[in-house]
């Protein structure tokens, strides 16, 4: 296939060899599926799957002003992170909306951090961070790192086997730096599937070796490569936000149920006042999960209606859940309708189809 305008990860040719269907995702030539979405999804829920997430961006913050800069740029309390710890956080704009959602990894307390950002936002984020820098030494390391996510109940057993240390003893949201066959690597116990596992950052030149080793040595754990299609259904079943769906530059984190990653008592940060104002005035809408009471699959952009025909919200993500084998949706809904059990309808191509606010995550262990 001739795709001269798309960026390729170091693993692109591996995906083609594995028979993947490749698509344009945020300007990257990425595998959307290999054997089939459902089989891949199920394999992550029952065994282990490998995801090429090398398209994600990485930005390094170093120097005596690294902590101060990250405290200003992000919502979570970076001062709480000790060496080799990580947390989920948000990159707010001046209006209290969201430039991106991110993970911050502490390499050396106070002075060295790695920030992982969405592929679709990587250039925008780097420009934003540089523009609002408070004196840190900021470097875009996106082309230096490849990234492979290893996710599923058997993921850490595979890591134990291949990396030669006890990954299965690591706490969630921690990291370990090591050397993989002469290539610098970091294993972080983070992910985007709701399953146990990790994400490995590795120097670009070591990516193919690691990918091939994981596939070969993962045979006994029934490892499979997983495409972006299943990545989306896996995160949707756990109601994890995706930029461009649940969050964007107008999103208030409290409305998005991300208030747990905002620490206003600990510090001042970009957009803090307008962000808190919306919370203090009472949230007008909230992000909820719902299921259909009648036949139909909700999709992003569909409108929600009350039974007296008022428009009360919009779907942000929707799919047929492979685990539950029924449609599920995530939506912003007016707060008065946000209670669990509340019924409403979804406008599916002009047809009003009944639905009900439900408990999330949609699936549980």
């Amino acid at each position, binding site marked *: 296939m001739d795709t001269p305008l798309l960026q390729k990860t170091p693993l692109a040719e591996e995906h083609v060899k594995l028979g993947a269907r490749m698509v344009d995702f945020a300007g990257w030539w990425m595998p959307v*599926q290999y054997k*089939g*979405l*459902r089989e891949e999804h199920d394999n992550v829920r029952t065994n282990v799957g490998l995801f090429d997430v090398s398209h994600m961006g990485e930005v390094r913050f170093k120097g005596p002003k690294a902590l101060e800069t990250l405290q200003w740029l992000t919502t979570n309390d970076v001062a709480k992170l000790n060496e080799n710890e990580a947390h989920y956080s948000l990159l707010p704009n001046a209006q209290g909306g969201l430039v991106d959602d991110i993970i911050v990894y502490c390499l050396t307390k106070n002075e060295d951090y790695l920030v992982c950002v969405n592929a679709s936002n990587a250039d925008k984020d780097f420009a934003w961070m540089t523009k609002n820098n408070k004196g840190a030494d900021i470097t875009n390391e996106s082309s230096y790192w490849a990234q492979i996510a290893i996710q599923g109940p058997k993921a850490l057993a595979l890591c134990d086997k291949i990396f030669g240390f006890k990954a299965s003893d690591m706490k969630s949201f921690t990291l370990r730096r090591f050397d993989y066959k002469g290539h610098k690597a970091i294993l972080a116990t983070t992910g985007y599937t709701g399953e146990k596992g990790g994400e490995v950052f590795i120097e670009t030149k070591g990516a193919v070796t690691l990918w091939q080793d994981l596939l070969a040595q993962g045979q006994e754990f029934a490892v499979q490569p997983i495409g972006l*299609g299943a990545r*989306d*259904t896996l995160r949707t079943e756990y109601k994890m936000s995706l930029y461009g769906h649940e969050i964007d530059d107008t999103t208030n984190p409290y409305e998005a149920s991300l208030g747990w990653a905002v620490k206003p008592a600990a510090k001042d940060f970009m957009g803090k006042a307008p962000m808190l104002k919306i919370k203090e005035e009472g949230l007008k809408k909230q992000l909820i999960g719902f299921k259909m009471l009648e*036949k*139909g*699959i909700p*999709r992003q952009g569909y409108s929600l209606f009350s039974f007296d025909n008022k428009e009360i919200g919009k779907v942000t993500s929707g*799919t*047929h859940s*492979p685990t539950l084998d029924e*449609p599920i949706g995530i939506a912003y809904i007016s707060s008065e309708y946000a209670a669990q059990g509340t019924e409403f309808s979804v406008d599916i*191509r002009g047809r009003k189809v009944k639905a009900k606010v439900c408990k999330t995550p949609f699936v549980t262990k």
Partner: protein
Amino acid sequence: MVFHIPEELYYTKEHEWAQIDENIVTVGITEFAQEQLGEIVYVELPEEGQKVTQGQTFGVVESVKAASDLYSPVSGTVIEINAGLNDDPSVLNDDPMNDGWLIRIEMDTEKELANLMRAPDYKKLVQA
């Protein structure tokens, strides 16, 4: 991948096939379409008696990933739908060219067939 593209059928550029039996047209999606869609989990078809127009949507098939419109190859009246697909849409993946047919249309005019593709052109489209 090699797709089964029978010579006797007509095709739309949106990947429906049309089988003509005098003025009755049976409509389905092609093997290429089902392969692209992936696992089909939901099908929305028109009612019998409903009018359809060439090039306009008459229904929807949904995979886990997305909803895709179905386009009518001819104008006319729907005289039969494959109701079994509501209960088991997987037939569309397993046998899109036969048991997975979608609707039968009584067509208004044979002249519209000139706007459809024949097998050699359709082959070129899916191999492009």
